[in-house]
């Protein structure tokens, strides 16, 4: 397979609604960069570095990379193990090819929210943050309690969050 062409097929299959994510994914897939996932030669350093893979056989970073390279988007974006990644970055730190594995998995999670089936917990978290601007909502009563402890008042809404993801 010619350098620089091996992923074109898989990229064409994917229609993205968010250009920014498409850009990030393209960067991560790019064959001409050392950090692109096609540089993976399956040494499995990521698998043996991964704290989740040691406990849960179904989760394996190298499996996610392979599925992406084979263009198995349907299975990949519906794979529940995708959500077990804790973003601890142990795989990325140790990859001899310099592949940004944890960042790649974060991009996959973004795509799964848009195209696949995110777990109910993720959907719930999205709802909360859209409404409250934070994952642990605060109200005026909380701010009164904070004031009693000498802590500053915190905003109970966030305009940026509401505007960016609330409109959908």
């Amino acid at each position, binding site marked *: 397979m010619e350098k620089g062409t091996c992923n074109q097929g898989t990229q064409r299959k994917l229609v993205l609604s968010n250009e920014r994510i498409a850009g990030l994914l393209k960067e991560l897939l790019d064959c001409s960069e050392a950090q692109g996932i096609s540089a993976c030669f399956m040494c499995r350093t990521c698998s043996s570095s991964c704290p989740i893979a040691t406990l849960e056989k179904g989760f394996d970073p190298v499996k996610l990379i392979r599925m992406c390279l084979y263009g198995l988007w349907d299975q990949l974006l519906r794979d529940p193990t995708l959500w077990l990644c804790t973003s601890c970055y142990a795989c990325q*730190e140790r990859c001899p090819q310099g592949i940004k594995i944890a960042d790649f998995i974060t991009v996959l999670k973004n795509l799964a*929210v848009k195209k696949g089936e995110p777990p109910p917990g993720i959907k719930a978290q999205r709802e909360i943050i859209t409404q409250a601007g934070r994952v642990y909502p605060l109200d005026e009563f909380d701010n009164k309690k904070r004031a009693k402890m000498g802590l500053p008042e915190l905003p109970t809404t966030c305009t940026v969050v509401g505007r960016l993801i609330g409109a959908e």
Partner: protein
Amino acid sequence: MKRIAIQRCCSTPVLLKQYETSTDSVLRRLGVEPVDIQNFGCCGYPLRTFDLEAYLACSAKNISLAEKEGLQVLTFCNGCYLSLRQAYHYLKNDDNVKAGTNAILAQDGLVFRGTTEIVHLLHFLISIKEKIHDSITSHLKGLKVATHYGCQLMRPREVVDFTQHKPPLFFDELVEITGAESISWAAKQDCCGAPIYGLNPDISTRLLVKKILNAKEAGASLLCIACPFCQLQFDHVQHRLLAEGRLDQGLPCILYTQLLGLALGLDEEALGIQKNKIDLTWIKDFL
């Protein structure tokens, strides 16, 4: 007095107010004023998995507010630290990402320039270690402590402030300033499991128990933490495991600002040690 913008975490106002009060108290004792910028919101971390664009905008918003004030940003949460630093890294190195994010910020009259610095509380404290050394009033002698750095303080290397602190021994040094002994343990750099507790409590607690047992085996009598999510895992979740009989013997944990606060002789109420779930009242015997 040095002024620094403080990024308060989303979990601390609800579940760990003692981390905020102890951090404020420690900083003030060391001659640093934590500045709360109005409209400082979520760091964007929880948005990373849904929408990278929204995440970048949230992070960049806080960074640009701090830049406007000419202040550095201090975080006491590893999640906020990675989130802000990674956003800074993306925006600084990619003009397209920067332009796109700035177009969103412009609606609030803000602009990201990339003129400030994001520092973690531990990095900041190690930079003023002489001052800390001189301010200690009592040493915690004979206390064996296992330091838990937390993943996102250490990785990924191109984003976190790694080169400046290589090998990563700054937390151990900060613990030893208080007179306690920092022990060496194998699972030190492993993940505590906190990020997936909500999605898969079984795997999450298995990661936690693995760390607790390893630290105990290495001879630790206390874990020291500097991230609210790790603290919730080691304190709240461990407390639940003990109460439900799923863990025979636990290992107490303390926030670094509480440990340092004890050595600095700070007000007990501000340190909030009685607010921790797992009993720590015995720690005063070491003073």
